[in-house]
């Protein structure tokens, strides 16, 4: 196990800057998820940590050692690829034993370690099969087995679940988490799926356009997003964001450009100008006959455990999520009250949270 320090790391492909100076300090035994939309540089960053991609600038340290110019094989890391990258001409056992064989580990010990890993991942009955005889979930497990037999300093996961169907994904998510809790090896996990990041990681690094937008614990990022991008990216269904103006004539209100008026207890301190962006998470509204927002329901999506409502209020569309069953149908009108303690405001120009 080891710490991983990423100091001002940059990556250019020709004149295109893909990673623009990233600092992340990963603690020993921590599970960190890199999350962000496609093209944000998260996979490139992971590949740089693995040594598959040259670093244009900055420094990556595994433990105390700077690994910028160290070959992947000497970094003592293991990686699970998105498409598993199992060796198709080798059996499951051979796939898992490959790294140990290259290292010259004695046969007996290889066998012991492979068996132990197979046992952990319930792969024992499959040891003699080749990858094409396995299902997606089994292949995924073999890829993890190949990583854990080596007992590396750091695990890298590159979107390992994105090729699985929804049900299997949830199952494997739990398996990876369980495995991590058992091994407590430093883990860096790249995903574009915020649910995976939220549910699995100790800390989340939200990346966008080659930079880090925010680093923090999952709920911290959810409740106190640093900026509009993070607020919009984390959370599903997505947060409602309405540009508008603060008014203090009568009492403090925020009026969105689309005409919704939200009463405020007070205008947030440090508001530099009268403009701003209001953020309301879909689940932070309650049905209340005295509520200030009048919503015309256009779509309802009951899923059993919760009900998603899409509607229009004045000129704005609004997403709402209720944990209880609500008897609403398209065309209905309902009064809503946003939770005053949980609404967020952002600076319209910088996007920073006020």
């Amino acid at each position, binding site marked *: 196990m080891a710490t991983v320090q990423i100091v001002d790391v940059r990556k250019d492909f020709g004149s295109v800057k893909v990673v623009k100076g990233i600092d992340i300090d990963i603690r020993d035994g921590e599970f960190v998820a890199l999350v962000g939309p496609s093209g944000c540089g998260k996979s490139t960053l992971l590949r740089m940590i*693995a040594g*598959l991609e040259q670093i244009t600038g900055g420094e990556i340290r595994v433990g105390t050692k700077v690994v910028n110019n160290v070959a992947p094989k000497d970094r003592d890391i293991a990686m699970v690829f998105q498409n598993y990258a199992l060796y198709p001409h080798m059996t499951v056992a051979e796939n898992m034993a490959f*790294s140990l064989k290259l290292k010259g580990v004695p046969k007996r010990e290889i066998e012991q370690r492979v068996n132990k890993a197979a046992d952990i991942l319930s792969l024992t009955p499959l040891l003699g099969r080749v990858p094409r005889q396995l299902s997606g979930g089994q292949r995924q497990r073999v890829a993890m087995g190949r990583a854990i037999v080596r007992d590396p300093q750091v695990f890298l996961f590159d979107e390992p679940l994105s*090729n699985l169907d929804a049900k299997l994904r949830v199952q494997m998510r739990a398996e990876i988490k369980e495995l991590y809790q058992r091994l407590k090896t430093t883990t860096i996990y790249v995903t574009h799926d915020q649910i995976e990041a939220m549910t699995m990681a100790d800390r989340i690094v939200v990346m966008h356009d080659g930079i880090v937008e925010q680093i923090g614990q999952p709920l911290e990022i959810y409740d106190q997003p640093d900026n509009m991008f993070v607020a919009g990216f984390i959370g599903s269904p997505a947060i409602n964001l309405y540009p508008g103006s603060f008014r203090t004539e009568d009492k403090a209100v925020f009026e969105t450009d689309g005409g919704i008026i939200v009463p405020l207890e007070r205008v947030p301190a440090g508001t530099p100008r009268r403009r701003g962006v209001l953020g309301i998470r879909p689940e932070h509204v309650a049905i209340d006959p005295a509520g200030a927002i009048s919503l015309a329901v256009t779509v309802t999506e009951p899923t059993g455990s919760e009900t998603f409502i899409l509607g229009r209020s004045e000129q704005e569309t609004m997403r709402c999520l209720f944990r209880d069953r609500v008897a609403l149908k398209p065309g209905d009108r309902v009064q809503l009250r946003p939770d005053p303690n949980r609404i967020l405001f952002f600076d319209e120009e910088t996007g920073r949270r006020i």
Partner: protein
Amino acid sequence: MNRSFTYRASLLFLAALAALWTLFPFAWYFLVSLTTPGHIPRRFSFPDVLTLDSYASALFGSGAKGVSANYSILPNIFNSFVVAGLTVVGCTVLGFGAAYVFSRGRSTTLNVLFNALLVIRMTPAVSLAVPIYLMINTYGLADTHIGLSLVHIMLSLPLAIWLLKGFIDGIPVELEEAALIDGASVLQVLRYIILPLAAPGVAVAACFVFLASYVEFMFASILSRGSSDTLPIAIAGYNSDHQTFYNEMAAASFMSMIPLFIFFYFAGRYMVRGLTMGAVK
């Protein structure tokens, strides 16, 4: 599938016609090889006596004077195998390395080089006859197995590279990256990952290269002076200034095909594709 009888009959007729068109000369030639030495059927007719005399005399040089060339093609079979074997080894080893570089490399220079290799193949071989003869002669390699295989390697290498590149292109690069992280050096990646997965491609390339060398006539005839004559030279040798020994020529031609069948049978077993299935996805 409820096609009419006429439809199926006409398809069958077309197929039969195509087969007949291609096979007729061979069939006739085959009959020549089975005819009593010295007799050539002028038209396609079934000979009165079927005999293997021409085969025996081509193999052992045991034919009667006047109707036989009196030499054995056994040494020529040996020569052909040595030359083709060396060519296969040279082309697959060099071709595999080059194909890997062409497949994984990303540079304009490589693209230009790769296309140049293919363009060179489009020039008629005869235009290279003089320079190659001079080169091989200068280094004292004329009439040697090595000399001829060097030329054959030059002729077949572009094809081998092109074929192998296609196969290596199909091997996901993630497998290499996984192996690098697993602790493999670049050579170990080639040895343990790329080579086993490209094995069917290597078998295909080996077959084509073997065939090309085995039947190559022009350079073999320019560079040989007797001791390294390959089969095509020996077969052509039945046509001398004074006489042409058609029966033996035909017998030798048919016998020359047998080793090819055997070679292709064994190589074909390695050509089974679909090994990469299940690697990624």
